């Protein structure tokens, strides 16, 4: 199943079974609820962390996920990685469900993740080389081969192996640690890499280098990325398509330029409008969203955003709007305002043009 290629020392990536048209990852109605202890005499409530989330990731594209803290981005990442058991929904990798045709172990070869906290992601007791070599060794590679693979990968992420291989995590900087984490993720030759706020904790200049490194690596290894961040500029720079999440649901998705230039959901509009502007002629004025985000425990009925939405109407409180295609290049939004014929006063007529 996994062999060592003599010329490059790397593990073979798991084979492409679906072909170029098959999405690398298909997520259907992914759901995860957490029970919250309400105390001795109170009934238990649930945090609806991820609710009915669906999207696809095509091969060789970069999909971004944006949203505020607590919107469910990281939980989604962990569910996709099968680090957490999902309550409902399907995760289909290259056309195959995890089961007999594709074991969890094999899936681990296909999908890897880079975490936000560069220091907590590395075992303080292992050297950088040992941390990177761990994964391949688990999948059967010999110790010496794994170590040389680790050193080669260090070179590929921009760290000189002679200098860094025997260092410990506390002896290198944050940016260098993230490079190590990226090398570790690549060690299993995955085809999909999930980056969960991977550059958020870095200084701006270092962040830029690591982003460029990611772009280069994607080209060199033919990777597909899922890039999670709360930083809109970064997401725009690196993504082809983007998902916007709010309180556990996907509220908008589409090509990144489309969503940025013509956001359909009021939340997306507010997010974009809230970005601090460096243009003195177009300063950011008062924040467009009022109030704090509501509690993810027992969210309001209907559209979860309606309590903060300037365009809310009674219809919005009754039923949750479904993510609907807006008819332009796969741009979808979950807002009655954008769905033709929904009954919202600002909605376009059925079969008509979008706003």
């Amino acid at each position, binding site marked *: 199943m996994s062999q060592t290629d003599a010329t490059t020392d790397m593990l073979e990536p798991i084979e492409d079974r679906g072909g170029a048209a098959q999405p690398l990852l298909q997520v259907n109605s992914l759901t995860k609820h957490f029970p919250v202890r309400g105390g001795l005499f109170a009934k238990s409530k649930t945090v609806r962390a991820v609710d009915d989330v669906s999207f696809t990731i095509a091969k060789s594209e970069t999909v971004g996920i944006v949203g505020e803290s607590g919107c469910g981005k990281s939980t989604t990442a962990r569910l996709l990685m099968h680090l957490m058991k999902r309550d409902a929904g399907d995760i289909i990798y290259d056309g195959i469900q995890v089961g007999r045709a594709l074991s*969890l*172990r094999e899936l681990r070869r296909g999908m890897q993740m880079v975490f936000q906290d560069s220091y907590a992601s590395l075992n*303080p007791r292992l050297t950088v080389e040992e941390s990177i070599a761990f994964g391949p060794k*688990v999948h059967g590679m010999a110790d010496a081969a794994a170590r040389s693979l680790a050193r080669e990968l260090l070179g590929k992420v*921009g760290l000189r192996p002679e*200098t*860094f291989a025997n260092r*410990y995590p506390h002896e290198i*900087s944050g940016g260098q640690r993230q490079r190590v984490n990226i090398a570790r993720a690549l060690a299993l030759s995955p085809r999909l890499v999930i980056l969960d706020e991977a550059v958020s904790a870095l200084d701006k200049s270092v962040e830029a280098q690591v982003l460029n490194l990611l772009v280069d690596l994607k080209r060199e290894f033919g990777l597909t990325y899922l890039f999670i961040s709360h930083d809109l500029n970064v997401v725009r720079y690196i993504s082809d398509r983007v998902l916007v999440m709010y309180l556990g649901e996907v509220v908008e998705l589409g090509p990144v330029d489309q969503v940025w230039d013509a956001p359909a959901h009021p939340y997306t509009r507010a997010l974009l409008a809230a970005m601090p502007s460096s243009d003195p002629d177009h300063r950011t004025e008062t924040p467009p969203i009022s109030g704090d985000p509501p509690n993810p425990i027992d969210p309001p009925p209907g559209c979860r955003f309606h309590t903060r939405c300037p365009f809310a109407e009674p219809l919005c409180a009754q039923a949750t709007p479904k993510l609907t295609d807006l008819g332009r290049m796969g741009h979808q939004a979950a807002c009655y305002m954008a769905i033709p014929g929904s009954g919202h006063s600002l909605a376009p007529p059925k079969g008509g043009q979008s706003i």
Partner: protein
Amino acid sequence: MMSIPAMTDMALQAAPATKARGYWATVGRRIRRDKVSMVCAFILALIFLSALLAPWLHLADPYQGSMIRRLRHIGTPNYPLGTDELGRDMLARLIYGGRLSLVIGILPVILSFVIGTTLGLIAGYVGGRINTAIMRTVDVFYAFPSVLLAIAISGALGAGIVNSIVSLTIVFVPQIARVAESVTTGVRNMDFVEAARASGAGAFTIMRVHMLGNVLGPIFVYATGLISVSMILAAGLSFLGLGTKPPEPEWGLMLNTLRTAIYVNPWVAALPGAMIFAVSICFNLLSDGMRSAMDIRS
């Protein structure tokens, strides 16, 4: 095409390759520099060695006594530390006594370290119902004050060396299991363990490679802090007559039998306790030294 790294990164990359500085090597170096810890280690080594090599040290017979020689003072010729209430040489009794006292004091800590760590590691890593089952059982024993539990178990089982060791092990397992579970849970939630799971490793591999090394340190420091308590308790059991039985030399028992002698020869009567105190304080200081040496942040 690689992008050019920043100045700081470049500077660090240009540094000459350094030899691998292992964690334990760093800890060892810091302890060696701590004078107090070194002195304590030296004293302990002395006591341990003399106990170990006792039969070869040309000492008097610790069991041989004579009533005419009883309760001689410190500094008597031939009896540098005096004699006890049955005329036996104190120096010999103290050194031979070290053998039993150290074993009864340290062995329970070692046993409970192994048992408690295993329980805590499993409870912490697996979580859920197994964790609750193990920790609730542990809590029941934790509900007793240690002295009371040790004496109750010893009182029930009867006097004797083995019974003392069993009793003390039962007292310490809950304490170590608690620390182990707490540390394990803390490590379990760290991202590098998630990353290890994400690479497809099995539970045992993860526990061995990623958790054990990070967990053993704090538990070990806690356990070394327990040694002094264990020695005091073990000797205390003998002091009450629940531990070693006469005529074996053992510091706690010696304190018991010499009690009535405090009116005649108080300083000889106090000697065994001084030994317990010395060992106990050295272990405590060493344990403190180890804790600061292992603190990666300082």
